[in-house]
């Protein structure tokens, strides 16, 4: 552990010598990337494509986020799944199905399960900000790709962090667009990779508009999320992120 910190310190000082203006702090880069993606608040429409070797399925969803903790996702299409949704608030998650007209809290034992049948887990959706608070970040490398600086960052969870991953590695551009996010298990094996396929200017920001989550042991199985439209920094009432709104949409 001491070695790791020493190396990290060396790397950082090395960076500082190279860096022209500001010394890039790994934690700040991650923080900025998460903030950039989510904004203080956002409202978006996305499509999700779940691909398997022998079948495919796509959904369109509407999502609202506010701060680090609150999010609401509701399915618009296909028609027979319309109205299904999930609400997350501070690591807790609820799901609603209009077929049974019930809101159900997802037990913590189920947080590792697939979210809406995709390759994202419930945890991926509910705990997006864990990576800032519960990890130590190290800047591994800075490279120049087509005139844009790309940071390669390794994030290792704290000893006590309630996280299933052994480490995560991120590639972030200096305009805060996440290019790649790799998840490794406790043994250092790659489990899954979130990669950015398209970058576009949307809602006044340059964002990763199409991302794909691929499982390392099953390359033929992936889930793609494409942002269709997005607005940032809009005023969203807190009442949007309530169980009653999950059940009965008021918009």
């Amino acid at each position: 552990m001491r070695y790791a910190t020493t190396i990290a310190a060396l790397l950082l000082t090395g960076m500082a010598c190279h860096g022209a203006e500001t010394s890039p702090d790994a934690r700040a880069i991650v923080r900025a990337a998460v903030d950039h993606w989510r904004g203080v608040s956002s409202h978006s429409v996305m499509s999700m494509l779940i691909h398997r070797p022998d079948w495919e399925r796509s959904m369109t969803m509407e999502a609202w986020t506010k701060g680090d903790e609150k999010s609401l996702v509701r399915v618009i299409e296909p028609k027979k799944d319309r109205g299904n949704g999930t609400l997350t608030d501070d690591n807790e998650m609820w799901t609603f199905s209009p077929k049974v007209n019930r809101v159900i809290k997802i037990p913590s034992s189920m947080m590792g399960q697939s979210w809406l049948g995709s390759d994202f887990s419930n945890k991926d959706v509910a705990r997006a900000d864990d990576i800032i608070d519960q990890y130590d970040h190290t800047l591994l490398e800075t490279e120049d790709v087509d005139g844009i600086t790309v940071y390669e960052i390794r994030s290792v969870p704290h000893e006590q962090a309630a996280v299933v991953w052994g480490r995560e590695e991120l590639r972030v551009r200096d305009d805060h667009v996440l290019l790649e996010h790799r998840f490794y298990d406790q043994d250092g094996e790659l489990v899954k990779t979130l990669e950015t396929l398209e970058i576009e200017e949307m809602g006044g920001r340059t964002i990763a508009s199409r991302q794909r989550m691929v499982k390392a042991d099953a390359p033929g199985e992936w889930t793609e999320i494409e942002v269709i439209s997005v607005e940032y920094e809009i005023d969203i009432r807190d009442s949007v992120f309530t169980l009653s709104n999950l059940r009965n949409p008021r918009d």
Partner: protein
Amino acid sequence: MNLVLRLAWRNLWRQPRRTWLTTGAMVFSNVLLVFMISLQFGMYRLMIENSLQAFTGHMQVQARGYIDDKKMRQSVPDIVSLANELREELDGGAVAARATAFALASSEERSYGIAVFGVEPQFEPRVSNIPGLVGEGRYLESNDAAEVVIGAVLARNLKVGVGDELTLLGSGRDGSFAAVVADVVGIFDSGVAELDRTIAEMPLGLFQDVFYMHGAGHQVVVNAPRLGQVAEFRQRVAALLPDDADLVVHDWDALLPGLKQAIQADISSAVFMYAVLVILVAFSVLNTQLMSVLERTHEFGIVLALGLKPGRLGRLVMLETALMGLLGLCIGALIGGAVTGWLGVQGFTMPGMDEMGAKFNLPSRLHPQVTVASLLSGPAVVFLFSLLASVYPALRLRRLQPVEAMRAA
């Protein structure tokens, strides 16, 4: 030969106490072996039968690859017709179709991840004893009512009783949202913690509807009349499967690999113990025979001098042992069979049986089962090793010189 046999028999009773003591050691180990082997194999049979009866069945027809991946899409199309066809071809045999999915079960208060099974209420009782173990309420009746039967531990965890509603949430076969609210009509208590904690059963028709199965399912359970007929039945079932569908039949040891491994591990540790017992008996025989040969050196010298061939003397000693061994075998098997048979009828219990029983689906009272194999296999091995033990004393006789032998005390 007749003479040698008569001589051997008489020789045995020249020292009746010694003969009885050695025979006693054989009888004791034989009784022990008969009892333990009967108990052991009786227990294995129970373990297998009870584990399979609970839920798995003797064999299952599944889509190829389902056994490893357990993916919802690896399904058997039109499963009810396939089950009907198999049932007809197997003369109304025990055949039932099932479908299964992972779901989030939630009551008013709590939620748990469980395995939901769609079953045919009218045929399920023939392949599983869960329907018979419904203690509270009743088992499923119609094929498409919104009803579930759940395990006792799950019911306790969810805090639901008969008559309460249960919400099940999962993914359908096409990946879409599957959800249903069903009434808990029965609670079963199988005593197998894993089943009682993680299983809910609903009618197959309802399951196919809720999970968008379009008539498909995941397993057709087939039971042979007896465990011994599984291999034969498996071939019959495999021959009946349609050629175009990618279906396979798995028998119970493929479906429950842990069960066979547990049994094999237990057999190897038992075999080690039996081996120690048999070798101890063999050494006691060796000791007796060596002593009896040594003390007769003078006498053997005389008969050799009179012209008896050394080989015949060796045979005499072997025959003495064989007669003693046969005596031990008969008495041992008789007593062992009687004691074990009596315990088999009465049943008995050991401290700690309840705990082990819960783990391997055994009743807390044991009934060892005497079969020809369990009655004779142990004693036969003891007999064989006793004979082997007398080879050394017999061989010694071949090197006997008449003159020196006669001089021995």
